[in-house]
């Protein structure tokens, strides 16, 4: 194959659609210098930003407690109908793309000293949005960390992201992918909680009461297919309040 057959540059998401599941002909992706295979030159995820498939959901009014969602559900016990984050892939099964979750970051503004703060990640292959109170779902801004790409998601209807107090219908075919301890003493306003997906675990030195900290947690790699949902829950061992704050979600679409 000659170099002239090679489609230059890696902006596949901008110039060409990805391959379709019905095997219809498509352009293949090649490297920046005409390589036949797109290799990453770094061990990080910059290649995903380069091709325009990495997305962020952020709250642009950071630091202002107005319009921010509930990020800590400091209520007693786990409730399968009260996630604080829903990421639903609304694409059709064919030709649908998948969402690859990179991380979730929580920045609570208030404190909830209601015992141990837990985090739970579940997936479900049946939509449970029937009971969703839309007014409760705060809207994040979707953006791309690549100024060469348009500042919009690759496809407008790829998914739904809801934050806050989100009562939904009960579990259908859910799976619990991970349950972890976010903070052993409740939450502190000014804490940061990060849940990384598909990475190696990190230590968590027991944070004493009253200290603010950035606490990293771990979840297996999770892929959300067309029609599937990711649900994130947090809850305390005791208490009955919600704490507002910021949420940031990083994921890519392929």
């Amino acid at each position, binding site marked *: 194959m000659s170099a002239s057959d090679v489609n230059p540059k890696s902006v596949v998401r901008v110039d060409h659609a990805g391959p379709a599941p019905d095997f219809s002909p498509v352009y293949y992706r090649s490297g920046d210098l005409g390589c036949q295979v797109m290799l990453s030159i770094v061990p990080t995820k910059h290649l995903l930003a380069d091709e325009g498939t990495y997305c962020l959901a952020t709250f642009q009014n950071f630091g202002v407690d107005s319009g921010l969602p509930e990020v800590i559900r400091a209520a007693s016990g786990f409730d399968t109908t009260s996630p604080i984050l829903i990421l639903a892939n609304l694409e059709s099964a064919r030709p649908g793309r998948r969402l690859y979750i990179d991380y979730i970051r929580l920045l609570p503004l208030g404190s909830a000293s209601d015992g141990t703060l837990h985090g739970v990640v579940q997936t479900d292959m049946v939509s449970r949005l029937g009971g969703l109170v839309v007014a409760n779902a705060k809207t994040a801004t979707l953006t791309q960390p690549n100024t060469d790409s348009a500042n919009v998601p690759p496809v407008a209807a790829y998914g739904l992201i809801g934050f806050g107090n989100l009562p939904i219908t009960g579990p259908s075919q859910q799976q619990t992918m991970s*349950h972890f301890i976010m903070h052993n003493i409740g939450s502190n306003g000014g804490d940061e909680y990060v849940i990384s997906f598909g990475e190696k675990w990190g230590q968590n030195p027991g944070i004493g009461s009253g200290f603010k900290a950035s606490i990293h947690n771990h979840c297996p790699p999770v892929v959300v297919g067309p029609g599937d949902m990711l649900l994130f829950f947090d809850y305390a061992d005791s208490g009955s309040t919600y704490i507002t704050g910021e949420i940031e979600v990083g994921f890519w679409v392929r």
Partner: protein
Amino acid sequence: MALFRDVKSKGLVRRQDRTPTLDGLNRDRPGVGRYAEPAVLSFGKGLHNVADDGSYWASVDNFNGNPIQCHATFTDGSWTLAIFNNDTVGVDARRLYLDYVSFVLSNTIVITDLNFAIHLDPDQSKAPNGASQLDTQCANLDVNARQRNIVGGIANTPPCPAILWLNQTAMLLSPKSRLVARGKMRGSAQAATDEYVISFGGKHLQGGIYSSGNPGRFVSTVAPVTVGPQAWLLFSFQVPGSAGSAFSGEFQVGFWVR
């Protein structure tokens, strides 16, 4: 191969086929990448690719807070957690690649030195007690439920070959068994909501000085461990000065299968 034009399944291989392997899985169809690259490449350092092709599984003990069997010293035949690769030995057999084992403690016990050991044993004749079996969850419902059933895909989802049990007894090590990991989770008194994590195949981490009774997460990195067909991984806690069901808590295990 004339590269791309001769590749029949124009990408999406990770959604439909595994990369051709020595195990004989779809060796008649070349593996290509998401954009029809003639190789399936990983992006970044994470494990999303094994989730993408439906190979990653998690087992979560769903908040049960089960009593956990532990002993003052290592006791052959008594295992806190036992994992069996139920694939039949042969060309289609898959292996289990351990990612992590995590345990969240739900009670407080004032003892010191929480140690662990991990053995591998190819003796498939062991007889587990099936009462304490854990579920396994695929990290990609799309592969598990749909893509493998579309035209050109694999007809049926290969079930997870791993079977996990808690608190097994009377399962003595065979002469072919081997110790593959030994470590310490905590040197001071345990606290409720401690998390103990064994991470396989990663970089070793510096621990800290954790005060007695102050809960935290304790990560111990061990060698990369692979469990072949009809073989066992046997995990045990040792707690000097204590025995029996001193611990209660919840196990989680992450692993991939190929």
